[in-house]
């Protein structure tokens, strides 16, 4: 059991390092060329796609890093038994009678 948890922890540390490295490379790539990239990304029009795509890419890499980092540090979500809210939804009205094909005459 302890060996399994140790293995899981090791895997988590490796993942944190991997995503951390990817994130660091991405940040280094942008900030080492910031003088060129910043005005290029701010040309407006179709160039708007560049900053938007950039933040999406950074979010996936850095987001994964952040998630693994908190997990490595032992900060993980706990599931609690859901506390039932008092029922407030109004019950649906009773179904209306379906139209009949035959008429009772």
């Amino acid at each position, binding site marked *: 059991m302890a060996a399994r948890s140790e293995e899981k922890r090791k895997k988590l540390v490796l993942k944190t390092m991997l995503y951390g490295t990817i994130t660091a490379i991405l940040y280094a790539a942008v900030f080492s060329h910031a003088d060129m990239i910043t005005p290029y990304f701010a040309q407006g029009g179709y160039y708007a796609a560049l900053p938007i795509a950039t933040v999406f890419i950074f979010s996936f890499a850095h987001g994964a890093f952040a998630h693994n980092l908190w997990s490595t540090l032992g900060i993980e979500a706990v599931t609690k038994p859901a506390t039932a809210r008092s029922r*407030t939804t109004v019950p649906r009205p009773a179904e209306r009678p379906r139209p009949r094909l035959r008429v009772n005459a």
Partner: protein
Amino acid sequence: MHDTAVEAVKFIDLTWMNIAFLFTVGFIGGLVSGFIGSGGAFVLTPGMMSLGVPAAVAVASNMCHKFPKAMVGAYKRYKYGQVDIKLGLVMAASATVGVQAGIKIQEMILTRWGEAGSNLYVSVSFVAVLLIVGGYVFYDAWTAKGDGSADPVGALAKKLQGINLPPMIHFKTANVRISLWFTIPVGFATGMLAATIAVGGFIGVPGMIYVVGVGGLMSSATELVIAFLMGLGGTVKWAMHGMVDIRLTLIILAGSLLGVQLGAIGTTYVKEHMIKVVMGTIMVIVAVSRALAVPEYLVQLKVISVTPQVLSILSIVSFLTMCFALGVGAVIILGAMIKGKRAAEQAAYGTAPARVSSESYEHV
């Protein structure tokens, strides 16, 4: 248009102090956003402006970090079963209309009373909305039972849920059935406030709690969906005008992605009424901060006369109070998290609370 935008935008030089400031505020703002669904923008935008960033670039760069942060927060909280996507989409649709209305009102005021009039309108909206709504949330939070039981649904929400006005919508995750006509005003007001003071969540979250009748945890998580959609729309608009400074955005994002995940994890440790405690506290302190900014605009409109020294002091105190609001929010969240974590660890000796598997959401 593009060339004009590039010429008009002046990108500031970054110093280590600027970077540290943006990263820290980004982290704390992210923490608060991950927990209550919004926050951070009210400090980040004026904060960037105080560093010399032009107002439009500050708003655009802030918005460009807001939507990916909200996306990550929403995804994380969706994994915890706290997001009602349908409610988020319905709210976001009406909020989009609200944003347009808010912009039109701003333009009207700007044309008629100039920049000082517009600033006064923003500050008065801030103070009025935050004092009334925030004051109520604050009062409700401190009078609520802190015993961990689920928040009871408010009287107004109960009444509205009982009115059968088609089309009725059933929000499955939130377990609420209500007429669409009662969700539209909440979404609309959220958008209008977002266009006015850049923090729509200060209306959106209390609106979902007290009008629609959704719990605090689910409201704050669903607000992240609204923030993502509205932030993405706003970013496209600003980026097409070439106003995003990608360096500022990425620095803030670096802090906020760490913070938003911590805040989201924090919601699983605390009792539901803590959302209201944090939100109410922040709103009331921010209202005080904005009230301190009102005299400056009244002087510009020649309604009152105050010495420039006093105005300068008021301006500094106003900004510091805003930072204080964010700081207090973060301290309450971290305090509640530590307390909740200890309680969970103690409970582990008895009935162990299951940890959410890290494997299940490893990509964000």
